[in-house]
């Protein structure tokens, strides 16, 4: 398996990342130092003495700089161990790798929602819709929905490129779903269907970032798509710290402080990223909090980038998800008042359809000329995959009470969500029982982000191994138990604190094994390094 390289170029950039401010170093001078353009001599007979045109020393430095820990070093090691076990089952003190690094529910046994898959299968192979045998294999309402969807696709051609924003009829269904959710209207023309929410985030970063002088406010800890995307587009990440002591609270005073600091350094802050429910932190924002955030963005002229992909993952009965669109509209703010981009995905929730790459962004509060540019960028890639588009429309307009499939659909949905809530609680309790570990509740999303106090000896051992302490802990955990967590440094944390992110996704019957293996390991680790 390929290792992510720690070459000299990357080390240079990596060291400058160790400081907690996440400022993107000014790279323009360093890449000229590193690059070696071949001399312009067209008559040279051999290029063997020249550096190849694509090599580490002339690759786009923004590529070198960005990092994505979710599929980073620890995962590469895990895959290596997995192969070793496959070849020689007794080679490690565990039988299998337990991937708790990534929000990928169906890879760990979560079942897809039957109704959704029925509709997708029929849309993939519409030739069977007319056959009588189909009635015996598919529910009647899935057949009906498939017909309905196909009628909205020109020529019923699911293999054709659609409109670059996505099939109009599907956007209509999504807009209706948004309206049903929020109680405020949504316009299908504001919706851009994308191959997952991530490409939509990239699109916005591309539009917003002109140079490293453009800053994007991001929560720390954050899902590293944001730091990676900002780095790739050459901008600056302006961190704002979530408060671990108050359940990862987001204070507008902290936003203001960071905004001012950035501005004093000559950075133009363009947007604010809010992940709600949070990743990796899992907190759900209170409505009052959300109103203050909207007000802040409005006052400071920031685009609000609302990552709401976990909107259906809420595990605490006393809290609810409120979309930022709803909150803004309930404050009386419309198109002229707040520029808002809301991201949603088919990868999370109770549907967990990561592999389909379906999602959308809803853009409101932008002028026609800006919207035209957004459309233009979307058109270069022609369109997102049609099956993912269909799934996004299903997620936003699932079976209703009275539909034939409603009961089985809601049983599947509730089964998954209640199981997730149980697993979140079980793991949270397990972490809180570990020496030196404190874990905030996962109110939503799919993760736990416990904080670990590592003894001095462990920190020294980590230094000797040239690893961040949390990465060292995670590696030791992996090699002892096969469990894969992602070190907190991949998400950002207050300097000098250490965390790791663990998903709540292993199947319920595997959770006791995870807990016991983890507990045993942690005890022996602490025994080894306790002062």
């Amino acid at each position, binding site marked *: 398996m*390929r290792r992510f*390289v720690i070459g000299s170029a990357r080390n240079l950039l990596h060291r400058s990342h160790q400081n907690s401010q996440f400022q993107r170093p000014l790279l323009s001078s360093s*890449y000229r130092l590193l*690059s070696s*353009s071949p001399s312009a001599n067209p008559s040279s007979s051999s*290029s063997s003495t020249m550096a*190849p*045109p*694509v*090599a580490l020393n002339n690759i*786009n*430095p923004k*590529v070198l700089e960005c990092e994505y820990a*979710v599929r980073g070093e620890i995962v590469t090691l895990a895959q290596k161990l997995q192969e070793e076990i496959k070849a020689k089952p007794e080679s490690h003190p565990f039988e299998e790798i337990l991937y708790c690094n*990534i929000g990928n*529910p*169906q*890879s*760990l046994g979560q079942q*897809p929602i*039957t109704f959704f898959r029925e509709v997708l*299968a029929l849309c*993939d*192979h519409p030739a069977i819709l007319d*056959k009588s*045998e189909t009635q015996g*294999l598919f529910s009647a309402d899935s057949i009906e929905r498939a017909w309905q969807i196909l009628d909205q696709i020109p*020529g019923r051609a699911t*293999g*054709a*490129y659609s409109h670059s924003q996505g099939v109009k009829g599907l956007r209509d269904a999504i807009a209706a779903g948004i309206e049903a959710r929020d109680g405020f209207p949504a316009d299908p023309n504001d919706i851009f269907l994308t*191959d*997952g929410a*991530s490409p939509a985030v990239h699109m916005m970063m*591309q*539009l*917003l970032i*002109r140079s490293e002088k453009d800053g994007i406010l991001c929560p720390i800890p954050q899902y590293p798509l944001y730091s990676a995307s900002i780095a790739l587009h050459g901008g600056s990440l302006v961190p704002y710290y979530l408060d671990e002591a108050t359940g990862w609270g987001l204070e507008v005073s902290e936003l203001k402080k960071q905004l001012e600091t950035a501005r004093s350094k000559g950075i133009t802050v*363009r*947007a604010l990223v809010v992940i709600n429910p949070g990743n990796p932190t899992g907190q759900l924002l209170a409505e009052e909090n959300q109103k203050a955030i909207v007000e802040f963005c409005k006052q400071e*002229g*920031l*685009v609000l980038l609302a990552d709401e992909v976990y909107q259906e993952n809420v595990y605490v009965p006393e809290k609810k998800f409120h979309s930022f669109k709803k909150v803004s509209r309930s404050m009386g703010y419309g198109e002229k008042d*707040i*520029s808002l981009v809301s991201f949603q995905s088919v*990868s999370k929730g109770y549907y967990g*359809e*990561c*592999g*389909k*790459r379906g999602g959308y962004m809803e853009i409101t509060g*932008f*002028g026609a*000329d800006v919207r035209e540019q957004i459309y*233009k960028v979307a*058109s*270069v890639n*022609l369109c997102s*995959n049609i*099956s993912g588009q269909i799934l996004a429309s299903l997620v936003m307009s699932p079976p209703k009470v009275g539909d034939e499939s409603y009961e089985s659909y809601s049983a599947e949905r509730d089964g998954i969500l209640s199981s997730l809530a149980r697993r979140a609680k079980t793991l949270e309790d397990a972490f809180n029982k570990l020496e030196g570990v404190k874990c905030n509740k996962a109110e939503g999303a799919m993760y736990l982000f416990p904080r670990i106090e590592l003894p001095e000896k462990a920190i020294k051992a980590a230094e000797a191994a040239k690893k961040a302490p949390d990465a060292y802990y995670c590696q030791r955990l992996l090699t002892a138990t096969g469990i894969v967590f992602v070190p907190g440094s991949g998400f950002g944390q207050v300097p000098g604190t250490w965390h790791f992110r663990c998903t709540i996704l292993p199947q319920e019957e595997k959770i006791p094994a995870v807990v016991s293996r983890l507990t045993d390991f942690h005890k022996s680790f602490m025994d080894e390094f306790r002062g």
Partner: protein
Amino acid sequence: MGLKALDYETLNENVKKVQYAVRGELYLRASELQKEGKKIIFTNVGNPHALGQKPLTFPRQVVALCQAPFLLDDPNVGLLFPADAIARAKHYLSLTSGGLGAYSDSRGIPGVRKEVAEFIERRDGYPSDPELIFLTDGASKGVMQILNCIIRGQGDGILVPVPQYPLYSATISLLGGSLVPYYLEESANWGLDIDNLRESVAQARFKGISVRAMVIINPGNPTGQCLSEANLREILNFCYQENLVLLGDEVYQQNIYQDERPFISARKVLMDMGAPISKEVQLVSFHTVSKGYWGECGQRGGYFEMTNLSPQAVDEIYKIASIALSPNVPAQIFMGLMVNPLKPGDISYEQFVRESQGILESLRRRARLMTDGFNSCKNVVCNFTEGAMYSFPQIRLPPKAMEAAKKAGKVPDVFYCLKLLEATGISTVPGSGFGQKEGVFHLRTTILPAEEDMPAIMSSFKKFNDEFMDQYEDNWNHSRM
């Protein structure tokens, strides 16, 4: 009241520079007219299924079964699906780590990449490494990823053919790089001239641009020409001498409509040339499920294969791929099915061959129909569509037409294409969207309208064109329009 957060003035300048005519002005106008009730024939984009081409049956059966694996447990599944589709669905599901709904390896499912490598080996006669094959959400995403690695700034130039498929110019603009054009010679069947290439490179270097890569589109888009083996050798030698990475866009490799120049991959020729070139020239080859006779544009399935890139460079490209998590899994299965097709003896083989050949033979006929049809029009000259999916006739606009265009505030070929659209409903893309020599105008249309519709479309075009030419030519009395 706060400040406006994002307005046109504060947008990334690179975004503003981007142009993508394929879904630009003509397409938008056509869509408007369609909404008003006019019948539009969309020939602006290579989108076969939108013009009535049917999907191949077998892959749809397999993917439908993969979507709904509970069908596989049903005793009646055989009533709707043939046994080989059922077996193949089980095969692909076993290669995934959780079915279609789980993120795969960021490079794509290893088992599918192995099938791609085997396909490449069968096609070219040289082994291919699955570790150097990355599946992507369409070939376009792959092109963007690779160009993103290469382009550091304005100082980096990419050699791009003119005319070209504007994904390249758009991406280079977006990434802030420099497009270094090399002109294909229309009178020499859109041939490539090495001296012209050298000159383009020299000019770019003189301006301080570091020329990093060369794009070839083979078969060409919009031009359709198929490169000969000699051409490819010349190009590879050139890349070797000039130290360029070759980006081989080979998405139309199944679309070949003449027998003199069958498709040969850049990689095969590279390997044939032996050391040191075969070991040093860097090459990235692109392919897709969107074109060929599959035409599965809506799936967004593609791959790129890297040759002679260092392990560290490959790692960085892998890292970027991992941020997007994984390409969509259904399309990966389409890709597997495309590179690992049915064999004689398989239950569905004959139907598959019949469907495939039917499409290819029809495309070949339509390529000829369209070329001849254009050549029968006044002031229109059209090279034969040797491959791909397009026709790119040259429209010789009379000076009065150019004046009228100027008055209307439009580039001449845009003016012509708008008039064509309004008169006939045929939605094309003006040649200026692809690049052309100064003062020479073209339009691009696809050869994809259904065969039975072709005669009517071509005669509708001819009527419009000949009347247009009559109207704008100097020595004619034009009272008709």
